[in-house]
């Protein structure tokens, strides 16, 4: 047996042995953590932006927020009379209009809702679908986009029962695109192009199809309180026989456990799109301001852990 070959073998064995030890020697504490991070970090994972707004409304108009799948939201909105009504009307608090509504998350991206407003005894039904979700990570999406559609049914007795009235005359439709971006932890902005169709308008001078552009924001003040504002600009010469104004609202959101309280002032009195966007009669410069609030409460009817589902 050649000694040289034996020596070669031994040195090879030593070399392999030494090499195998190297990773253990260089393995400082953090390498173990890095190993764990490498094993768990998934660059394709999509991180969806949450809590762009505290609730499903900015003030009166819808925000891009939807209740999660299986969550039922009960929403009560109140708008009082005008502040400039003076002390005799207790600054508007003697007159209140309200809307009661339920909305349900059929899917995380789909909501349906119904409501009843005392204002013009109006029933409304709506659907909301989230088309795009703002996200970072594996898929970068700068904005969230929601399609909103609603139908409103005015159930007042006919003003002129002696003439022929059509049921369709009671109906109005609204379509909106809600385009929002959570700029940072505190500030979120939303644009809301709006189209409203009234089946019946007072005169032929008034347009059946009405276009408006809405804009809204929220800014966090503390973790539980935000300032919100929204404005709907009505394109001119659409509503002619009635003097109407652009809807402007400013409010705060106060969030407690399962409730969100929204307190605000607005020149609009009604709480559904076709009314506050196209039929606001309050003139801010004249002090026609209504105090109002929304209270929302969520009930979880059913829910499933997505991680639990993955196992099956």
């Amino acid at each position, binding site marked *: *047996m050649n000694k040289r*070959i*034996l020596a070669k*073998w031994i040195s*090879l*064995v030593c070399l*392999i*042995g030494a090499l*195998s*030890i190297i*990773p*253990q020697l260089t393995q400082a*504490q953090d390498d*173990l*953590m890095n*190993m*764990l*991070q490498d*094993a*768990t970090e998934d660059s394709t994972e999509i*991180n969806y932006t*949450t*809590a762009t707004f505290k609730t499903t409304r900015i003030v009166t108009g819808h925000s891009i927020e939807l*209740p*999660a799948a*299986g*969550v039922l939201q009960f929403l009560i909105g109140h708008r009082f009379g005008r502040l400039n009504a003076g002390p005799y009307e207790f600054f508007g608090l003697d007159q209140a209009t309200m809307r009661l509504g339920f909305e349900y998350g059929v899917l995380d991206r789909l909501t349906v809702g119904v409501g009843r407003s005392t204002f013009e005894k109006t029933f409304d039904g709506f659907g909301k679908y989230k088309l795009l979700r703002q996200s970072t990570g594996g898929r970068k999406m700068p904005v969230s986009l929601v399609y909103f559609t609603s139908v409103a049914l005015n159930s007042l007795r006919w003003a002129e029962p002696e003439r022929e009235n059509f049921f369709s005359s009671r109906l109005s439709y609204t379509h909106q695109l809600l385009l929002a971006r959570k700029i940072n*932890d505190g500030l979120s902005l939303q644009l809301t192009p709006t189209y409203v169709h009234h089946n019946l308008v007072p005169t032929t001078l008034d347009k059946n199809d009405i276009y408006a552009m809405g804009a809204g924001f929220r800014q966090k003040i*503390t*973790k*539980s309180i935000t300032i919100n504002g929204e404005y709907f600009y009505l394109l001119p010469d659409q509503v002619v026989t009635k003097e109407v104004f652009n809807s402007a609202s400013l409010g705060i959101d106060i*969030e*407690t*456990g*399962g409730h969100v309280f929204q307190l605000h002032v607005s020149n609009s009195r009604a709480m559904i799109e076709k009314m506050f966007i196209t039929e606001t009669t309050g003139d801010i410069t004249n002090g026609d301001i209504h105090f109002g609030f929304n209270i929302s409460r*969520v009930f*979880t009817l059913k*829910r499933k*852990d*997505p*991680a*639990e589902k993955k196992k099956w």
Partner: protein
Amino acid sequence: MGINLKIFFTLFLTGMCLQAMAQDKLFTRTGTIKFVSEAPLENIEATNRQVASIIDKKTGEMRVIATIKSFYFERAAMQEHFNEKYMESDKYPTASFTGRITNLQDINFLKDGKYDATVLGDLTIHGVIHQQIVKATITVAGGQVSATASFPVVVQDYQITVPRIVRDNIARQVEVSVVMKYELINK
């Protein structure tokens, strides 16, 4: 000494080295961390089933990482508040633990049985680091190593502020329980 024997000897030694490298670490990415908050107005619990952990059997070093957004709550609103208001999970996306089993000599990873382990290390939650001693139970059964532990976490210690309005909804101290089923790393 024949040449075949030498080749065998070399391969055997090399194999041992590689084996040792692969088998001295235990790993999981489906560990469970659950916490329970018991407060006068309500009890809240949340579960994260996608926790990653690694144990170096040789040194007793242990690491755990949990993604905050993977904690699942029964109520969607709670989950949103947890991430948005309390944990600030966009700013601090994970909680982690860097520690060491201090009584490694008492644990035989090759023999079936239940072993009490004391793990000493740093727990990082909400970007704040605190030393934590955790009494854990390591169970070896048919080569499968699992670990369970539970310990309290004082919310205030990690600079998580609870607004006064929900003070009766959220406990000052939450009970955390951990269940891990480890596998050998096979690379």
